[in-house]
C-alpha cells in the first residue's frame, strides 16, 4: 500500500460514496420497489435484481434503492416508485426487467419520465 496523498482522500471518498449516501439517506434519487406478497408473487424480486444489476454495472453512486410493502394496487404489480430530488414521485406499473431498465436509463439518469409505463404522478393523498 503506497503512502496516501491528500488527493487520495477524495478518491477513497468517491469509492465508498454509495454506502455513505445509503446510510445518510441523501441520494439524488430514490427507487422504491413494492414488495408485498402480491408484488413478490408477480415477480418484483426480478425487478429488484434488475435494478441492483443496473446500479452495479453503471456504477451509480447517488441512487437509493429501497423496498416497501404493497401499494394497494395488487393487480398491477410489479410496481416501483421513483423519486428524483425536488420532483413529485412517479409510480410505474406492470413492470418487467426490460421496462425497469428503460425507466432507469431515462427517468432516473436523465430525468425524463417514461409516460407509457407510468400510472400516476404524486403520491396518494395523506389526510
Amino acid at each position, binding site marked *: *500500500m*503506497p*503512502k*496516501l*496523498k*491528500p488527493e487520495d*482522500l477524495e478518491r*477513497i*471518498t468517491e*469509492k*465508498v*460514496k*454509495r*454506502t*455513505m*449516501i*445509503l*446510510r*445518510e*439517506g441523501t*441520494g439524488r434519487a*430514490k427507487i*422504491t*420497489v*413494492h*414488495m*408485498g*406478497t402480491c*408484488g*413478490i408473487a408477480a415477480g418484483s424480486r426480478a425487478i*429488484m435484481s434488475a435494478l*441492483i444489476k443496473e*446500479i*452495479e454495472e453503471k456504477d451509480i453512486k447517488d441512487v*437509493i*434503492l*429501497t*423496498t*416497501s*410493502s404493497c401499494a394497494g394496487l395488487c393487480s398491477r404489480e410489479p410496481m416501483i416508485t421513483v423519486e428524483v430530488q425536488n420532483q413529485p414521485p412517479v409510480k410505474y406499473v406492470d413492470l418487467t426487467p426490460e421496462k425497469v431498465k428503460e425507466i432507469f436509463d431515462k427517468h432516473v439518469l436523465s430525468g425524463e419520465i417514461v409516460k407509457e409505463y407510468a400510472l400516476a404522478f404524486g403520491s396518494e393523498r395523506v389526510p
Partner: protein
Amino acid sequence: MAYRANLMLCTCTMCVSVGALKIKKKLEEELKKHNLEDEIQIILTGSSWLCTKGPTLIVQPDDVVYQLLKEEDIPHLVEEHFLKGRPVKSLMYIHPEALHPIEKLHEIPFYRDQRLVALWNRGIIDPDQIDEYIARDGYKALAKVLKSMTPEEVVQEIKDSGLRGRGGAGFPTGRKWEFCRKNPNTPKYLICNADEGDPGAFMDRSIIEADPHSLIEGIQIAAYAIGAEKGYVYVRLEYPLAIKRLNRAISQAREYGLLGKDIFGSGFDFDIEMFRGAGAFVCGEETSLIHSIEGRPAEPTQKPPFPVEKGLFGSPTVINNVETLANLPRIINFGAEWFASIGTEKSKGTKVFSLAGNINNAGLVEVPMGITLREMVYDIGGGIPNGKKFKAVQTGGPSGGVIPSSLLDLPIDYERLQEAGAIMGSGGMIIVDEDTCMVDLAKYFLAFTNDESCGKCTSCREGSAAMLEILTKISEGRGEEGDIEFLEELGEAIKDASQCGLGQTLSNPVLSAIKHFREEFETHIKDKKCPAGVCKALIEYSIDPEKCTGCMACVKVCPQSAITGERKKPHKIDQSECIKCGVCKDACKFDAVKVE
C-alpha cells in the same frame, strides 16, 4: 457490491453483553435463507443508540431503528421488513409517555435533541473500515493542517474555538498547547488519556469503539500543534473491545501512511503507541499517568512542574482526554467560529455524557453545553422508570456531587455545576430515584476513593478512611449528634491538605450530599431509619399478605430458609434468620416483599 440496505448493528461492549453477536449470526442465516445476502449488508458499528435498549439495529436508508432484539424476532423481521418492505412496529422504540412507536430514528427525542460533534460518525460508519471514515471527511482536517497551517495557527484556532478539556477540570486546550509549544525542550510527547476510571462513565470507551479514527486524527492534529513526534494512548485494561478496535485502526492508518514518517508528504513524522493501564483509578491523574507509563510507581507528584514543563521522561508533555481530541477534526474542518457558536459563554461546544442509573433511556448522549438537567432527564432520558420519583443526578463520579430535583433547571456547563457543588467531570451522569439512599451513595464513593487512594498523602489515605468509618457508623444506626458537622470539617481539611485531584475532590460526594440532603442524614442519626430502604441495619423485609399469592418463589430462593409458608397462602419472613440479602424481593413477581 451494490447493496440496497445497510443494517447497522450496534456491537458495543454493552450490546454484546446482551447478545448482539447472536443476533448477527441469526440475521446472516435469515438473509441467506431469503437470498438477500447480496442486497443487504450487515455493518457492525460502535455504540450508536440507546444503550439500555440493546441489542439495537438501525436500518438505512429507511431510517428505522429496532430495539431489544431477541434471536426469535429475527426471522419475522427479515421476512417482513427486508423482503416485503414492511417495517415491524412491535420492535420499534416507544417513548415512555407515548402509546405508539416512533418509526423514524431522527424523530425520536433521544436522538433528535442531540448534537453530534465528537460523535460525528457514531453509528454511521463501520469502525473497522478506514475508508468509511475517510468518506465522512476523515483525515481532511489533518491534510488541511499539514498543508496549509502552521502549528501556531492551529494553536490559535483551538484557542479561538474556546475548547476546554473534557476530562474534568476544563482547562482551555489551546492554552495548554501554547505552553508546550513555547517550551524549547525536545522531544515533546502527546498523551491521550483514555483511562476512564470514573465509575459510571463510558464516553471515552464509546468514542473509541464507534470511531477510533477520529481519535487518531485528533491526536495527530494536537501533536502537530505542539510539535510532538510520538504519542501514547493510555487505555484502561477493562476495555478490551476498545483496545482491539483502536489497535486495528492504528495499523490501518499506518498502512495508509497516515502514521509514520513524512505524513501526506509534509515532512511531519508521528506515530502512536498504545499503553494498557492495569486498573488503578489514580492513573487518571496526569502526573501519576506519566509515572505509570514510565514504569514507576503510579503516584502523583507535586505540580508545578506541570507536564507541559516536565512530563513524560522529563520532556514537555500534553495530556488530553479522548473526547477533547475527538472534537479537533470537526473544529479544523468547520472552523473555530462554528464551534464557538455552540454552547454557553464560557463553555463552548458540546459535551458527551453517559446517562445511566434509574432512567428509561440510558445511553451515550452528546448535547450542546447549556442544556438544562430537566431536558436531559425527561426529554432525552425519557424520565424515571416504574413511576418512581426523580431524586438527584450524580455527576463527575467520585470527584463530583449530587444535584437535587430543586436544581433541575440548572444549565449544564463547567461553572454552574461547580456552583451547585458538583463538577462536570468526565461526563458520567447517574440518575438516582427515591429508592437510592444518599448516605449509602456517599459511603459508596468514599469506599471507592479510600480503596483507590495511592496512600501517599496522609490526609487522603487516613482522611478517607475516617470519613468512611463515620458514614458506615451512620448507615448502621450508630450515628451520633455532631457526626455531620465533623464530616464537613474533615471534608474541607482533606481538600486543603491533599496533593492531587483524587484527594482534593474525594470529599465532594459527601459534602454535596450533606448540602442538599441533610435531613436524610439526620433521619439516619436521630430516628435510626433509612427512608430509601437501603441501609441494611435500619431496614426490615416483610411480606405483604394482601399481595402475596403464595407462589413459593421466595421460599425457594431464600439462602437462609428464613421464609416459611404453604402454597397459595401468604408467606412469612422470620426476622431472626433474615440476612437482608434482598433475593426474595428480586424473586417476587407480585411486588409483595416490602422494605421498611
